[in-house]
């Protein structure tokens, strides 16, 4: 059995650990062996702790031996994006300003995942403070796409995506502010779910843009993503924006198919995609239709306003969220004769270029004289986008689009041009602005580079999204077998 550990999905591995067929230590060792081989090439982790992982696995095995009931992720190796607070690992958000900072508390999601029996392998790389679409903006290192080491894994949750794609862990958590789970999932050939805003507690997530940020699962399969979602969904009294909605049985619903679904293929987002991506999305639409869904094309021109609105709202909130990194209480402190000089030095030396750019942009958009033209206007665009979505969701259960306009691009290819980089998020941003859920699922490739398609739905429709994603994934698998 231990030889096949790496072939088991999270549900199967945890079942094997619960039944005693595989020990948690065996499971973790199999993954650590994989880390030893892959990590030197992929560079996905900012911190790794093999000893701690083994110790945690031993604890799970001891718990089982003592007859304790094990959780749904018993023995499953997981990785956390490094913007989630963990007491067992430093938490840096890939920023030099937090180098070596060990939080005195765990994020709520981290507690939930660990309470479910999962074993934390390490913390994954990201664009500094989640600001980027390629993981090239990390203050520490560049993570490579396991499908092509010259290319980016996407971002900002690029480390988590690469970890899953190279099977260095079975499940990972990412955060998605404008597509940061879905776009790297698409570029790295894995599944990434951005839940409804408020579904998952943000307590312990280092805030980038508070009204847009949402934590979600990244996994090799739809079923694994659904399993992780069940563990992390649910109300948290520590987050005032957390929803009280009941958690659906997501894994059990996967097989229910798409027969009754009305699916809208969003033409406006197809138009921005490369031919290969557009054609993959077209095939996904055809597949859903074959499986019994009613697919029609829909144009939602308002979505085009999402990109500019996002690059006002997100930097505005970020400029405020990142003010606290001032060298006074924690993190990096620069030199200065006065408190003021010290704060300026800490921030100027501690933050990277993209972070500074967004702080400046957001500060400008909120400042006297520009507030109405930028910030307020962007908030109105959010209403417009939400209204347009509501209108679309009155006619469709789900919307289908590309996740990213292109497949993975070369390292360095877009990093000199922020505006070009920003356009990577054009398909994913609208769901963040409206707070609705969306998922990216692999569907084909272009010359070996994965292509993801995006399914979007109204608030709290995760079950529907996962069912449709599962249908697409299963259809691809069958195609592969033929």
């Amino acid at each position, binding site marked *: 059995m231990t030889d096949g550990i790496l072939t088991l999905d999270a549900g199967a591995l945890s079942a094997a650990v619960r039944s005693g067929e595989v020990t948690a230590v065996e499971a973790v060792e199999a993954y650590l062996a994989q880390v030893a081989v892959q990590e030197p090439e992929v560079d996905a982790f900012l911190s790794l702790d093999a000893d701690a992982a083994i110790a945690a696995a031993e604890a799970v095995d001891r718990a089982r031996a003592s007859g304790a009931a094990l959780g749904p992720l018993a023995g499953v190796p997981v990785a956390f994006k490094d913007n989630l607070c963990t007491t067992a690992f430093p938490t840096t958000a890939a920023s030099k300003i937090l180098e070596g900072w060990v939080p*005195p508390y765990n994020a709520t999601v981290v507690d939930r995942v660990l309470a479910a029996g999962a074993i934390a392998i390490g913390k994954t790389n990201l664009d500094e403070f989640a600001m980027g679409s390629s993981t090239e903006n990390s203050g520490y290192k560049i993570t490579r796409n396991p499908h092509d080491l010259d290319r980016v894994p996407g971002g900002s949750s690029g480390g988590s995506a690469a970890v899953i794609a190279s099977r260095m862990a079975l499940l990972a958590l990412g955060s998605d502010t404008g597509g940061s789970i879905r776009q790297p999932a698409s570029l790295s050939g894995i599944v990434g779910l951005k839940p409804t805003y*408020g579904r998952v507690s943000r307590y312990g997530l280092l805030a980038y843009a508070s*009204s847009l940020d949402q934590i979600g699962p990244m996994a090799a399969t739809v079923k694994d993503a659904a399993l992780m979602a069940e563990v992390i969904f649910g109300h948290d009294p520590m987050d005032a924006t957390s929803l009280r909605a009941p958690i659906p049985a997501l894994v059990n619903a996967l097989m229910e198919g798409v027969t009754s679904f009305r699916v809208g293929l969003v033409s406006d987002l197809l138009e921005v995609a490369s031919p290969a991506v557009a054609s993959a999305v077209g095939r996904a639409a055809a597949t859903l239709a074959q499986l019994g869904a009613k697919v029609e094309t829909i144009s939602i021109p308002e979505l085009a306003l999402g990109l500019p609105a996002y690059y006002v709202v997100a930097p505005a909130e970020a400029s405020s969220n990142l003010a606290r990194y001032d060298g006074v209480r924690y993190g990096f402190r620069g030199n200065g004769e*006065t408190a003021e*000089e010290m704060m300026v030095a800490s921030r100027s030396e501690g933050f990277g270029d993209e972070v500074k750019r967004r702080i400046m942009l957001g500060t400008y958009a909120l400042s006297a004289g520009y507030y109405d033209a930028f910030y307020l206007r962007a908030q109105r665009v959010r209403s417009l986008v939400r209204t347009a979505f509501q209108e679309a969701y009155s006619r469709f259960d789900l919307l289908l689009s590309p996740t990213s306009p292109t497949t993975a691009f070369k390292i360095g290819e877009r990093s000199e041009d922020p505006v070009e980089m920003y356009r990577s998020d054009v398909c994913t941003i609208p769901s963040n602005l409206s707070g609705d859920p969306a998922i990216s699922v692999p569907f084909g490739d272009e010359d070996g580079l994965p292509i993801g398609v995006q399914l979007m739905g109204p608030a709290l429709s995760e079950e529907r999204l996962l069912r449709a994603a599962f249908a697409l994934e299963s259809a691809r698998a069958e195609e592969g077998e033929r």
Partner: protein
Amino acid sequence: MTSGISKADVVHVARLARLNLAPDEVAAHQEQLSRILDLVGAMDDDRLAQMPAMAHTQDLVNVLREDVAVPGLPREMLLRSAPDVEGEFFRIPKILGEPE
């Protein structure tokens, strides 16, 4: 809307954000911010004036906590990650002037 940003604006914004920019950085930020502002300035729609400004995606209201004390964190734990401490306090260089 074309939204070129002046060098003076860049310097002013950096000052508000407590960032220090070298002269060549000012120029680089001016160029990039101008291009980004051109991108984000393109928010145009006849219906915008009628749209309410949306600050939250959920229609939650009155999310309140009972006034019941819960233990905080041990002081040592907090001071441990501080860049500079003196006794029981966080320590910083001298302050010039009052808050605004």
